[in-house]
């Protein structure tokens, strides 16, 4: 980090090398679209490295980069909700075909974003179950159990009270247990 703050390109590249897989995996599991996850991961690193002067060394770099990545993913999901969650079609839809293509089909919210890639790469039962969680639950459960962050770190990273983070994670695990119940039979 010290070398990166001095502007050493090699240090920047080392940071990208270390965090590209966790950051990309977190975003991919949040947005469930590989191309989009590539773009958001790239945007995350550009934003983080261009603002490296504002990074406070008392925090872990991983927490900082995960915060930026999570914000990028959540912002995207919120924007997408605004565009897609209209039963009258997306605001930009003008022709009848566009309106039909973008209109919300009741009950199909869980399937629409899951493309061929997910069927292949995120296709396991647990990945599908994670995909059905609310984005807030999804990011909390990923940060806790995939990235191994402590509750306090997650609370700080997501700007949420500690109790809320615990509730999200417990509820997420409860939902996952229910969603994966068929595997126990």
């Amino acid at each position, binding site marked *: 980090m010290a070398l990166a703050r001095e*502007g050493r390109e090699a240090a920047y*590249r080392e940071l990208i090398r270390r965090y590209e897989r966790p950051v990309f995996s977190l975003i991919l599991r949040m947005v469930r679209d590989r191309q989009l996850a590539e773009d958001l*991961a*790239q945007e995350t*690193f550009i934003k983080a490295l261009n603002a490296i002067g504002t990074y406070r060394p008392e925090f872990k770099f991983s927490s900082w980069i995960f915060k930026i990545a999570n914000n990028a993913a959540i912002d995207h999901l919120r924007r997408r909700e605004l565009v897609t969650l209209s039963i009258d079609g997306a605001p930009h839809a003008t022709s009848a075909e566009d309106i039909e293509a973008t209109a919300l089909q009741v009950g199909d919210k869980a399937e629409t974003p899951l493309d061929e890639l997910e069927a292949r790469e995120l296709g396991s039962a647990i*990945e599908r179950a994670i995909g059905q969680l609310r984005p807030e639950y999804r990011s909390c459960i990923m940060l806790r159990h995939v990235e191994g962050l402590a509750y306090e770190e997650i609370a700080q990273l997501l700007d949420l009270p500690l109790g809320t983070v615990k509730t999200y994670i417990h509820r997420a695990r409860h939902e996952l247990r229910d969603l994966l119940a068929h595997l126990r039979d």
Partner: protein
Amino acid sequence: MIDDALHLVPEELDLWLEGRLPESRLSHLETCDLCRTAAEEIREVVSHLERLPKAAPSPRFADLVMARVRLASPEPSPSAVPAPAPVPHLTGDDLDAWVLGVLPPERESHLRRCPECQALADQERVLVMRLQALPLFDPRPGLADRVMRQVDLPVTSLATAWRHWRVRAGREPRTVGITAAVAMMLGGSIAASAAWTAGHQEVITGAGNWLVGQAQQWWWQGAGLVTALLQRQPWYDSMRSALTPGRIAALSGTLLVLYAGGIMLLRRLLAPPPADTARALS
């Protein structure tokens, strides 16, 4: 007779594997065939796992392990009187603590007696293991290059500026060509100027003297013009008679005091507030 409620729980099997199982529980293990079999099986599984190449486990890994761990679960004895499950059941925090192996003893004892919580805890552990075993995905190759093309490296010293230039030049040979051409033009023109100056010192001295003379002439002409304009003003005479040396001194003193006061006030306004004031304001 062996008390079924005292069969080793998975955490105790972990402790046994690490050689940290308390003596009291070791004596149970020595006398209980069921627990001994479970412990040996666990040891066999762990030893097998340790021999595996270090790669991301399959998503079914947790199920495979836990399927064998469950073999060690105590079979309910027909003669045993089912103990009433103390309330409350394990909370989310308790389950967290159990997965981390730090469940308080009183909750641990509830867990041992409550089949409902045991099932929940089992599912919780499997779920956590499955989550922890999730693979990481690789982005398309070249992410670092794509990012670095859009990152502005901070220039903190001449050394970093030189390093950045070197790195960029290494990546873009065209930059090297352009920079070298500009440097040659600048260097050539400076060298030519120096050579010409060395051979024509009398011309330089003459031109310098002429410029100094012209500047002096322009200065005195300008000062004379301003003075003549002032003297033609209607208020000039009254102002001149009013400005006695004593009044000039008093006016200068007043202006000096006002200036010093202004500077002190500005410093006070710009100074950061003391810590307690800052705390009170925040």
